[in-house]
């Protein structure tokens, strides 16, 4: 017998192909999915919640919806082509609902078939898994702070609690607290919590007040202290401490709120939030050995992955990673000075390239140099050489590999006095050889990381003076900019590596990010702009009317899109335990990403022809 022609569900297939992650399924898998869908129509204002809808995935065909948490806070707004699985979200966090904000036609993928697809297709499963994780995290971030605020205090409380009886003496209580090295004790009458006593209470209510220490602890304790339950989160606990001024919170069972199960202290909460970048940088400052720094740096890939999953913007992530590498360098210099003694004359430790621009990602090698005051004498030189070696060796040990191009303070060329540096700049700008131009493009993105910032300012002022209006130098720099056209062929096809380890791949750093950085740099140098961060340069260029707002924004957006893809690629590489690289295979990107990447490359191509016209008029590309 004839079978019905299921491939005629073409209208559904065509739509699914535009939806993440269904765009990754092949045609026959799509036909299967399409054949399992149900089309539903719901009016604006309809609410999907715990008990009123069948489990499964809902894909918006037309219309729009909002996911909201239990307090009605917006978690995410969904548009055509996006989807949600309410039961999946609810299993992790109660009270989430979806509200339609327009009349909506939706494709409903029933739970059984949806789960079957997920268990058969790992990449589909991963997509939905991470999507759910992201939404849950966002639901947890009520105050737009860190994901860790959503962590349940049950998972970080201390369960070994010191308890005393109400009739125990104050002296006895203080003695066991000292012995157990804890800052508080709970006063228990049998199984029942009747009070709490802390270090601070003993100080203010006993010692300062001259209270008799042989009296019962019940006389000075805080009676019937308020507490939280194991299901409250770090955010609740932080609020509790802030509002009430307590630093110790008794934690009760969720089912029986008189049953004490543990205690949470202010330092527990601090530890819970250690992934936050601020804590990370502080943590680096407290290290006293290269080993200690290494341990922290070894966590950077996992932390980066978490930040990416929490949807941090690429500019934020690169700024954080740069702040970390700055902190490591600063700590290494301090440690070196502790051993070498104070610097004989003022100096400045410089960061170049991506570190200079505060645009580092994972896997960055070191680009650094030393700028020393003109008071430098011959006998001072060994001190600076020793400093350079200690810091560069330390950076390498921490994962910032030695620079292949030898742009490091350990070389004589990159460790000079201010006037020595100025002469080098003069030589580079007066006779811009290919090599010189390459060095300039690293060197002109400089930033003072440690030491006397005025030295760096003077050097930069000299540099800008030399570059600005030097049309021969700018033309040489422009040739370098134009040397790497974006990897987009005719018909907007990607031009990928033909062979080697990276066959069919693009290098997003070399072939895309560098081009945008180069374009921003040449315009900045020719307009005397001091900023080195690419976004800052592009902003400044608008102010001096060297670029239109449109061109500037396009380049910034292109930078963000490419960095985002690069960052997600790196997060993926960390997840599957591959070495982090800047290569990406465009065929493996989502359709949306491919489209964005093409658009970004077109922007770069346009901006490059702008550079050609301005700095190399009549010279071709």
């Amino acid at each position: 017998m004839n079978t019905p022609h299921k491939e005629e569900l073409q209208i559904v297939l065509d739509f699914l192909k535009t939806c993440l992650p269904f765009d990754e399924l092949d045609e026959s898998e799509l036909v299967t999915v399409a054949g399992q869908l149900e089309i539903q129509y719901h009016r604006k204002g309809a609410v999907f919640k715990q008990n009123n809808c069948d489990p499964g995935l809902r894909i918006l065909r037309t219309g729009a919806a909002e996911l909201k948490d239990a307090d009605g806070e917006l978690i995410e707004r969904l548009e055509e082509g996006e989807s949600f699985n309410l039961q999946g979200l609810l299993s992790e966090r109660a009270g989430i609902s979806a509200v339609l904000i327009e009349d909506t036609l939706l494709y409903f993928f029933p739970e059984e078939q949806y789960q079957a697809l997920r268990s058969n297709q790992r990449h589909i499963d991963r997509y939905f898994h991470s999507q759910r994780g992201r939404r849950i995290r966002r639901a947890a971030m009520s105050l737009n702070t860190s994901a860790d605020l959503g962590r349940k205090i049950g998972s970080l409380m201390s369960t070994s609690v010191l308890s005393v009886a109400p009739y125990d003496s104050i002296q006895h209580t203080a003695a066991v607290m000292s012995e157990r090295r804890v800052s508080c004790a709970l006063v228990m009458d049998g199984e029942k919590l009747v009070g709490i006593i802390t270090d601070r209470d003993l100080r203010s209510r006993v010692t300062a007040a001259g209270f008799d220490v042989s009296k019962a602890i019940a006389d000075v304790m805080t009676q019937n202290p308020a507490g939280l339950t194991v299901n409250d989160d770090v955010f609740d606990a932080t609020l509790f401490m802030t509002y009430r001024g307590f630093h110790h919170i008794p934690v009760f069972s969720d089912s029986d709120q008189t049953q004490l199960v543990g205690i949470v202290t202010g330092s527990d909460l601090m530890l819970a939030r250690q992934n936050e970048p601020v804590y990370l940088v502080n943590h680096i400052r407290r290290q006293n050995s290269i080993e200690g720094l290494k341990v922290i740096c070894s966590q950077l890939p996992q932390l980066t992955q978490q930040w990416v999953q929490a949807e941090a913007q690429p500019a934020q992530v690169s700024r954080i990673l740069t702040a970390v590498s700055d902190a490591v360098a600063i700590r290494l210099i301090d440690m070196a000075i502790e051993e070498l003694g104070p610097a004989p004359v003022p100096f400045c430790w410089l960061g170049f390239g991506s570190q200079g621009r505060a645009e580092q990602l994972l896997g960055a090698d070191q680009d650094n140099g030393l700028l020393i005051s003109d008071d430098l004498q011959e006998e001072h030189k060994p001190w600076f050489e020793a400093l350079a070696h200690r810091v560069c060796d330390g950076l390498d040990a921490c994962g910032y590999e030695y620079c292949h191009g030898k742009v490091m303070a350990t070389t004589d060329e990159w460790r000079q006095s201010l006037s020595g540096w100025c002469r080098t700049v003069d030589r580079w700008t007066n006779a811009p050889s290919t090599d010189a131009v390459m060095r300039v493009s690293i060197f002109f993105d400089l930033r003072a990381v440690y030491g006397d910032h005025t030295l760096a300012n003077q050097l930069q002022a000299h540099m800008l003076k030399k570059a600005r209006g030097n049309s021969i130098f700018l033309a040489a720099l422009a040739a370098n900019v134009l040397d790497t056209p974006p990897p987009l062929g005719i018909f907007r096809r990607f031009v990928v590596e033909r062979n080697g380890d990276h066959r069919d791949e693009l290098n997003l750093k070399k072939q895309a990010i560098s081009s945008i950085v180069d374009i921003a740099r040449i315009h900045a140098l020719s307009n005397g702009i001091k900023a080195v961060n690419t976004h800052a340069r592009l902003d400044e260029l608008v102010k001096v009317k060297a670029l239109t707002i449109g061109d500037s924004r396009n380049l910034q957006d292109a930078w963000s899109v490419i960095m985002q893809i690069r960052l997600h690629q790196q997060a993926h590489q960390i997840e599957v335990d591959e070495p982090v690289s800047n290569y990406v295979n465009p065929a493996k990107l989502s359709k949306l990403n491919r489209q964005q990447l093409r658009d970004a490359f077109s922007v770069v191509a346009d901006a490059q022809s702008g550079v050609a016209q301005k700095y190399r008029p009549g010279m071709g590309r």
Partner: protein
Amino acid sequence: MMNDWYQKSARMYYSKVADPEKNADAQYLLDCWKSLPSSKAGYTRCPALVVDFETSSLDCEKGEIISAGWVTAENGAVKLATAEHWLIASEMSVGDSATVHKIRDCELENGISDREMLKQLLIAAKGKVLVFHNAQMDLAFLNKLCLKYCGIPLLLPYRDTFRTERENMLKMSEVLPQNSLTLAACRKRHKLPNYPGHNALVDAIATAELFLVQHYRTAA
């Protein structure tokens, strides 16, 4: 529905006239008659089979059904698992294949007979109300097949999204603009996505979605 009483009495008459001995296919239609959906809720809540035909002429005396598509709508959802699309081997072109369009040749190779299509349709329609956009034409073709292979007329309850739309619009204004009741125009009015036309299954799904919308609008 207006014609309920007529359909009911006609079915009583034709159940006696029907002769499954002579027309074996009559049994499929009689099965449908035996398990009619309840008309109490005006057929909006009972299961529906949404049907569309592509025909070689607008006149059932001159042309025939080239392809048929249908899908079930039930409990406010169009179940794509039930979607079927059949190409029909045209009788007229059998002895005349030289003049037939290329596409028609392919259809001939892959198509089923109109008799088989009718049988499949009646099996799918059991216990359901039929839904068409502009029912009169499709019903005329369908009736012709029923009389030919079952010896009795269709006489199944149906809904017409075209008529529902016209009634709804006439409540708002006296005059209807030209072409405002085509399937595409109705869908556009309700902000449904734009589908390519002239494929029986696509049109059946498109009609089914319109049916859902009309149902919700009336409910609200």
